[in-house]
């Protein structure tokens, strides 16, 4: 599986119209293509970057990615391109590839993800990191010091984040080196503490060990909090 990651920098005040256009002109139409499944539409209405949205679309294989890009750049995508062009001032299309130990490797994994409801607000956190060490060492660090401790934490029932996947930006699709953790916030109160209370980390216990050791691998990353829009249509 390949996860397509499209970022739209939206003009001020344009979020609602942009989202309407996405659910009308894109999601139902590309879903009709074999091997293409719109997954999440994530939006932030205000922040350092202003208004933006990220559309995440699952693709079964490289050929399906080709079909998607031909649809988008051809006559069928013309109405959407015109509306998106008017409502955005920036656009990037990346392809993400999941680490071997991460979900989002197999197409069969999608169905249970699509069945999760939107009866309460769903908030996602995307962490993008730019390592200054070998990429393989960074990937292994994230598995060892973040993925596995949080998976262990989840078994206690006290998890505040669900880790959806860890990805590298595929060659030919954006910046290198760059890696992305995609997570869902399960507990808003814990998130409030994360935002509001400065933490002095103990380097010997998680999450301190992760935060302190992490500086060996990178010191630049970006966290984005986004609301997942309920699917329409």
């Amino acid at each position, binding site marked *: 599986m390949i996860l397509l990651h499209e970022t739209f920098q939206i003009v001020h005040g344009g979020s609602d119209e942009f989202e309407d256009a996405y659910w009308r002109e894109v999601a139902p139409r590309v879903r009709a293509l074999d091997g293409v499944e719109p997954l999440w539409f994530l939006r932030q209405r205000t922040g350092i970057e202003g208004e933006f949205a990220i559309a995440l679309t699952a693709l079964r294989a490289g050929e399906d990615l080709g079909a998607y890009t031909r649809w988008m*750049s051809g006559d069928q995508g013309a109405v959407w391109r015109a509306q998106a*062009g008017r409502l955005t001032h920036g656009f990037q299309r*990346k392809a993400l*590839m999941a*680490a071997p130990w991460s979900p989002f490797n197999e197409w069969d994994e999608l169905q249970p993800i699509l069945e999760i409801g939107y009866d309460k607000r769903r908030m996602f956190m995307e962490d993008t990191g*730019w390592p200054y060490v070998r990429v393989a060492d960074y990937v292994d660090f994230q598995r060892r010091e973040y993925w596995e401790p949080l998976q262990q934490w989840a078994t206690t029932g006290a998890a505040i984040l669900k880790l959806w996947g860890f990805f590298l930006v595929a*060659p*030919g699709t954006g910046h290198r*080196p760059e890696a992305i953790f995609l997570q869902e916030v399960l507990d808003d109160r814990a998130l409030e503490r994360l935002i509001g209370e400065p933490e002095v980390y103990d380097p010997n216990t998680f999450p301190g060990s992760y935060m302190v050791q992490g500086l060996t691998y990178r010191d630049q990353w970006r966290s984005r909090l986004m609301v997942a829009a309920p699917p329409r249509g």
Partner: protein
Amino acid sequence: MLVVQEVNRVKGKAMEQFESMTQELWNVAAATGVQAAWFFEVSHGTGPSYCVVTGMRLPDWAAWESFARAVAFGDLSGLTEALDATRYDSESSVLEILSEVPEPSEEAAASGLWVQRLIDPDAGGEAAVGQPGIVMRGCLGARPDGITVLTKETPSAVLDILTGETGSNRVLAKAESTWVLRPSSWSPLR
């Protein structure tokens, strides 16, 4: 036919290693269907220092996926990391070739300069299809759905393009960004 193009910010002291690592990566990647396409430096006076634009051809999207998986987590990851050690970072894109026509002018064909023009989506860039040079559509990366045109130009034509004193043809004049590129002595496209 697809092209993976990468704009590399190379560490100045590591330029020779960057070249040799690129050649080694291309040789090994040939097994996944990759064909070396171009190795250009941004010409002096037109942009950033030690900025190298590399291009690889791939026959189709299945070949791109094989190559991408090999780079991300497979057999090409070690070589790519060795390349990473010679550069600060890179920005890449996947382009689909729409047409490829040899340069008819002997003077331009003999010149060592290439010009890459980037035309926004739906700005009429498709009209360049069939004209001399390589016309490509952006699929992935920073400029999806736009048109990229790579042409060979004489040095005097390049100066005219940069100064805007003589117009290029009407389609190419739509470009919102123009890169002047000098091929290395061993670049497949010279």
